[in-house]
């Protein structure tokens, strides 16, 4: 029971600092789950990351899978609840406050600074996670090609995931 409680508390705290969404904080989640709490190993983390990317739905599913690894369905539900409730309650009250700010300048200012911070966090996150889960030059080539294709074309991400998966099955990555 104590590991469930610790899972719930640690992930709840994580939720409250997850500026820029869960993807911006994957390295923090990685450290927490792999190095600090030893919930899972590096390989399982990157496999769960892949499954969460390939599955439909919100991209915080890596968290759900970590919970599942620890304590089955109950762990999965608890982990998802933990990641969602603190920020949900926070925004429930905060949205009225922010919508209520009359000065459009102040509103803009908050949005601009938050956006810039989020971009920095997302890019750092991608970099640090790439260092953990890419083990071959081919994997980096695939990551960089993905960036180039999604930035310069309008391909649906699902095609890229399918291509990446196929290349992996064929043993290229």
């Amino acid at each position: 029971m104590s590991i469930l409680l610790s899972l719930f508390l640690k992930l709840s705290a994580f939720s409250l600092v997850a500026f820029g969404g869960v993807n911006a904080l994957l390295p923090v989640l990685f450290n927490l789950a792999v190095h600090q709490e030893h919930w899972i190993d590096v390989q399982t983390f990157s496999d769960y990351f892949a499954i969460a990317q390939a599955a439909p739905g919100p991209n915080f599913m890596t968290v759900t899978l970590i919970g599942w690894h620890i304590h089955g369905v109950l762990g999965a539900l608890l982990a998802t609840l933990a990641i969602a409730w603190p920020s949900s309650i926070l925004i429930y009250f905060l949205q009225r406050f922010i919508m209520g700010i009359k000065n459009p300048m102040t509103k803009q200012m908050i949005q601009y600074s938050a956006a810039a911070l989020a971009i920095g966090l997302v890019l750092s996150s991608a970099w640090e996670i790439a260092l953990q889960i890419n083990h071959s030059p081919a994997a980096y080539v695939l990551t960089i090609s993905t960036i180039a294709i999604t930035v310069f074309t309008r391909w649906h991400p699902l095609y890229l995931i399918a291509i990446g998966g196929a290349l992996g099955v064929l043993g290229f990555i």
Partner: protein
Amino acid sequence: MSGFGGVLPWARRTLVERDKILTSEEFSAILGICQIVPGPNIMNLAVCVGSRFGGARGALAATLGLSLGPIAIVLCLALLYEHYSYLESVKGLLRGISAVGVGLIASTGFKMLRDEFRYPAMLLVVLLTIIAATVFHLGLGYVVLLVSPVAIFIARKKAQAL
């Protein structure tokens, strides 16, 4: 449920373009708020949109509706993974997908970065954040504490300029 590769674009299409529940400006404003607040962006969005139409109960319904289906699917995949993860082809499959996945996260960042070129001084904030997080490996709290004064200062100028 059909939100492959993140739910955000799909949410926009459904709420704004198909069902016309929100106008485009309202959607952007709500999304902007959701990105300021920590936590899963899409959950925050569900809380905002849900509470607008049904108070706390609407918020709860929206978040549950958004997460229960995908959780069921991802757990089925996890079961398959338990049984077949020893296969060399499954390992390769996951390696390929995660390499693409990390690229997708990076490209979200790069796409958002494009908007910042409208006011290049803001790039300094992005750069500072990256340096603090990756070179100095500061914890998130310190990154936010360190960068946000600069961010607010430049954002103020940007708000005045644009």
